[in-house]
């Protein structure tokens, strides 16, 4: 920021320089001066804020007198520091007699109707109202009247319990649902002292992000139903971790007590989740501490899985692997850490000499170097999550973004709400993005290419400079039969709306986000080629994003859990079998042993029947699992492994950000991380892989995988590091895409 944008302000006599327009409360933070507050939140809009009045300060601004002398003029009323933008020469006093009296008065007002049931309140111990009362509040209350009463523990939603008596009306939660999550669920009803928070017509609060209101509530009014009465804040320990529910890689804190996970709170990471989590992450992580977790290995004896010791299980595994020779394969790794995956591929490639490795369970299983990488030079996301904020337009195609990529959804919404971005969306069915997408079009399922061709047709006419791109001639020829009307007819989207989408893409830098409707499309590669054409044509070749969906699928790709590439996308000489081929081989008894690493094909693979045949056949199936999943039930050996809370390591999220997780507690001494199991098996095969910790393995990855050279344990820090491709792709080209209506398409190989 340039110097002329900075202003000098004094807070309690401490001079600081801050950008013009910064809220005074942030300037005070910079000066190291503590100003108490309840309703202020840097991520929420100020419009409906400044209502708790806790941050009142005395302010003086310089005034020029008639004779040219500058004197400090004190504002007659105290001002709220949270909403006051600082200006040059402003002086703020936070310790005057008046300010101290005001804080006392405000706290006394807040407490007259607060039930003061701190001993049975979950927030007790980490409650801003408690803290501020202790530091700034009056010693005792002079209020002898009856307090406001409401029914306790009102069930607001599946996850949130609401105690109206404790509410201090700060409006943080209502602003959250308006500004951040966009579901507009909570609002104030009535007025004055009778005012309370409620949903419309007392319906349930329906939100994908309801858990956040629990965290931002400055009192114990909004409470987690799961965590309620489980623990006190001073009983729990906290460990930094990463959410495993999707590929966004939200930074979280695992709060645990006596070896059991109690709750999950968000951890600030401006580059990824800011400070939000989705409900899937916040309330879905409790799988870590359920009683269904496996703690001993299971071996199939007499047709049933029975408990065994580790040495029994490993001896059996090693013996069968020896017998199998090269006819082995592994599916999975999308839920394991990078370290687990690196050792898994090393074990298979170097020890067992097999390239039959795949982490993918979808229908779209392209070679690693094809598709997006061949066209644009990257595999999944061209943009970082934070990049979406600066986009002029964001085009979401074929993605139920709020369910598939919740944190990307929040960024996209932020781009629209606070940064002036325009969102356009095309989906086979209406999604929650229709709140702000303009327009959101609904196309006939499977007609993506038709819709894209219509848009491309318009852009090609407007962008004559594209004629210089290689492949332009063939490309334009392939579009000859296309008109906007034909695209409209094929896709079911009106010509006028196709034009509006093209206008929006043409208006400035545009990011493209494609989701499951594209990757699960029977002709997925054609749709992706068409998206690439659109991006290249509109000059946004670096802005195509087809994020992975599983927790560490990106890391598994990077670590070489692909049949045709080793770690760092080095091509291998003899590509192995992919998921489908492995399952087919197993079903035909052509594969001797199959290792499922945190993968459940029976439940998640598109062709469950094939998966069942494959696992139930002659193939020796080993499953490394947390639970007895439907696939593990069919396995011959089930090995219990550590969950995210019980191991160290790194995850790579969908934007390629490598982030560390830390071991919080231990489930049982018999539960090991996946890499330990492979290292153990390798040792029993007399080819030891001598690693002692995940840190060791990460150091080796830093050396052997150039893309991960910077991601050393020391450098990752709290923010993580987003690894970059060595160079951007320079030889962009246009490729003709054939449109095949869905009925004529057979399932892609």
């Amino acid at each position: 920021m340039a110097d002329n944008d900075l202003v000098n302000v004094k807070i309690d006599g401490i001079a600081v320089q801050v950008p013009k327009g910064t809220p005074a409360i942030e300037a005070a933070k910079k000066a190291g001066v503590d100003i108490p507050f309840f309703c202020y939140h840097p991520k929420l809009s100020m419009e409906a804020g400044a209502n708790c009045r806790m941050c009142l300060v005395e302010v003086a601004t310089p005034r020029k007198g008639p004779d040219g002398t500058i004197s400090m003029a004190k504002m007659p009323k105290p001002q709220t520091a949270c909403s006051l933008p600082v200006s040059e020469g402003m002086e703020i006093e936070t310790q005057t007699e008046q300010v101290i009296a005001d804080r006392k008065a405000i706290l006394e007002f807040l407490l007259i109707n607060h039930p003061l049931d701190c001993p049975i309140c979950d927030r007790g111990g980490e409650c801003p109202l408690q803290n501020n009362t202790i530091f700034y509040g009056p010693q005792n209350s002079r209020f002898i009247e009856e307090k406001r009463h409401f029914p306790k523990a009102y069930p607001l939603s599946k996850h949130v319990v609401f105690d109206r008596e404790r509410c201090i009306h700060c409006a943080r939660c209502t602003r959250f649902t308006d500004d951040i999550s966009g579901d507009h669920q909570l609002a104030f009803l009535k007025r004055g002292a009778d005012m309370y928070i409620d949903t419309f017509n007392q319906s349930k609060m329906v939100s994908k992000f309801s858990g956040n209101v629990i965290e931002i509530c400055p009192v114990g009014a909004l409470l987690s139903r799961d965590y309620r009465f489980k623990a006190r804040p001073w009983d729990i320990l906290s460990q930094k971790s990463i959410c495993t529910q999707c590929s966004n890689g939200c930074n979280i804190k695992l709060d645990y007590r006596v070896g059991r996970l109690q709750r999950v709170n968000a951890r600030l990471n401006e580059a990824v989740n800011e400070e939000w989590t989705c409900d899937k992450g916040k309330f879905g992580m409790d799988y870590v501490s359920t009683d269904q977790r496996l703690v001993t290995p299971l071996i199939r004896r007499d047709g049933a899985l029975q408990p065994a010791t580790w040495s029994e299980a490993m001896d059996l595994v090693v013996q069968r692997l020896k017998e199998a020779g090269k006819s082995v394969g592994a599916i999975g790794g999308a839920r394991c850490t990078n370290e687990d995956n690196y050792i898994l591929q090393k074990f298979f490639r170097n020890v067992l000499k097999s390239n039959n490795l795949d982490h993918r369970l979808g229908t779209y299983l392209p070679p690693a170097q094809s598709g997006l990488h061949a066209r644009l030079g990257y595999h999944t996301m061209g943009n970082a999550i934070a990049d979406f904020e600066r986009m002029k337009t964001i085009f979401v195609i074929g993605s139920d973004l709020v369910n598939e990529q919740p944190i990307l959804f929040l960024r996209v919404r932020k781009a629209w709400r606070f940064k002036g971005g325009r969102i356009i969306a095309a989906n086979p069915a209406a999604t929650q993005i229709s709140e702000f997408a303009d327009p959101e079009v609904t196309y006939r399922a499977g007609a993506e290419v038709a819709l894209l061709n219509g848009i491309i047709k318009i852009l090609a006419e407007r962008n004559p400079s594209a004629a210089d791109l290689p492949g332009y001639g063939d490309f334009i020829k392939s579009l000859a039969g296309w008109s906007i009307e034909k695209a409209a007819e094929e896709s079911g989207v009106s010509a006028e709306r196709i034009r509006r989408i093209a206008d929006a893409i043409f208006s400035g830098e545009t990011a493209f986000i494609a989701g499951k409707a594209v990757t699960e499309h029977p002709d997925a590669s054609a749709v992706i080629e068409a998206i690439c054409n659109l991006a290249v044509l509109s000059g946004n070749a670096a802005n195509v994003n087809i994020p992975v969906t599983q927790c560490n699928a990106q890391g598994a790709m990077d670590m070489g859990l692909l049949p045709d590439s080793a770690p760092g996308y080095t091509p291998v000489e003899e590509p192995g079998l992919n998921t489908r081929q492995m399952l087919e081989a197993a079903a035909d008894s052509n594969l001797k042993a199959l290792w499922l690493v945190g993968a459940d094909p029976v439940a998640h693979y598109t062709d469950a029947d094939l998966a069942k045949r494959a696992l139930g056949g002659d193939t020796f199936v080993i499953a490394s699992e947390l639970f007895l999943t439907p696939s593990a039930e069919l396995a011959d050996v089930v090995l219990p492994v550590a969950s995210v809370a019980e191991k160290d390591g790194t995850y790579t999220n969908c934007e390629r950000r490598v982030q560390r997780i830390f071991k919080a507690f231990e489930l049982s001494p018999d539960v090991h991380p996946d890499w330990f199991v492979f290292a153990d098996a390798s040792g029993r095969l007399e080819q030891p892989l001598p690693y002692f910790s995940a840190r060791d393995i990460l150091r080796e990855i830093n050396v052997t995988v150039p893309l991960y050279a910077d991601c050393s344990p020391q450098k990752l820090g709290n923010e993580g590091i987003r690894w970059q491709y060595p160079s951007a792709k320079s030889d962009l080209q246009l490729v003709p895409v054939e449109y095949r209506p869905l009925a004529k398409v057979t399932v892609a190989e």
Partner: protein
Amino acid sequence: MPETRILLKHRDEPGIEDIETYERLGGYTALRKALGMERQEVINEVKSSGLRGRGGAGFPTWIKWDGIPKNTNQPHYVLCNADEGEPGTFKDRELMLKCAHQIVEGIIIAGYATLSKVSYIYIRGEFVESAKMVRKAIDQAYRKGYLGKKILGREDFDFDLYIHVGAGSYECGEESALMSSLMGERGQPRLKFPHAPLPVIAGAWNQPTLINNVETYSVVPHIIVNGGAWYASMGTQGSKGTKIFSLSGHIAKPGNYEIIFGMPLLDLVELAGGVTGGNLKAIIPGGSSVPLIPAEIAKDFTLDYEASQTVQYRMRTMRLPVVGSGGMMVFNDRTDIVTLMLRTAEFYAHESCGKCTPCREGTRWLYKILYRIVSGGGRPSDLDILMNICDGIDGRSYCALGDAAAWPIMGSLKHYRHEYEYWIEHKRSPLGDNFVPPVPNRLNLNFELLPAR
């Protein structure tokens, strides 16, 4: 000193609600004259008249008019605040009922001067009759071509006027809350300068917005016809022209009285026929939001924006206004001040929007303490608590509603502390047999209806 009727000149004219009558009496000549002037000339005329906002705060009107950006393609709006909710004030109601065309004309002139195309008149929900009269006036003005496209043949001047009827909130008379309410949001005030831009820069829908009171717009046609200098020739140094006072209470002839600024307070009481039913005890001169003035010192006050009364508390000295919105309530010596304050506190507790802590909690607490005192449960320490609460509300609340709730009680504690002490000590009114107990109130009923824990 007699009344000087300018705005209420045609009040008693039969058929004044019809545009023909209004035009016969000189109506809409101001609009014709204004359309013949440059836009800036209109604003200069308002400036030279020294007109100040009639809603209560007395902000110079021309500054707002001049502040609307001139060279911009942004839409901007003219709003008329007809949400007259101040207890004791009923001047806008009468202006709308009797002189609606005068308001419409003033708004059109404002729209011309600020290059606006759209305007809204936000009428209090309870003013059904007034809204009907304004509706009628607007329809007639459209028919005559004073509103709509190409007004009076001016190619560059299209102007529409819409009525928005409120839903019964006192708070929505506050200008930023009015804009929230108009935009369909909860009727709560918004950030104000210096926390956010002034309404003339970013008001309704974040566009430049001019907002004035009904009475202010009503003055405008007269200023245009007769010139700003004529208007400025009336009144005092800082308060020019005339002001309508709504007199009510223990007075012989209650009603609206239009007088020139600077009239002594007691002269206006005499003009309205004097106090009935006893001797004068106190006057609330400008709506319930200003502190009351006891009879002993009433002779020191004149009615203009400069007049103020001083209240001192702890480290602060406050100069509180006298004129306000012009709702003058006169009380004779059979009035119990504590009960009067109880009623005032009940009003503000009921009307507090609930946005900010001091007003939401403080107004209700004030009411509860006063209720306890008149129910016989007062304690000597209550008076300090009352003063303390008022101090915590005044100047700390989000908008002026909190101040308005605190000032009357601060004023009464200054002048009538002995009556409070009598109540607390004897658990009955100092008026003895003359005391009329308050009617059972709504607020407490509400508490009893709430489910017990």
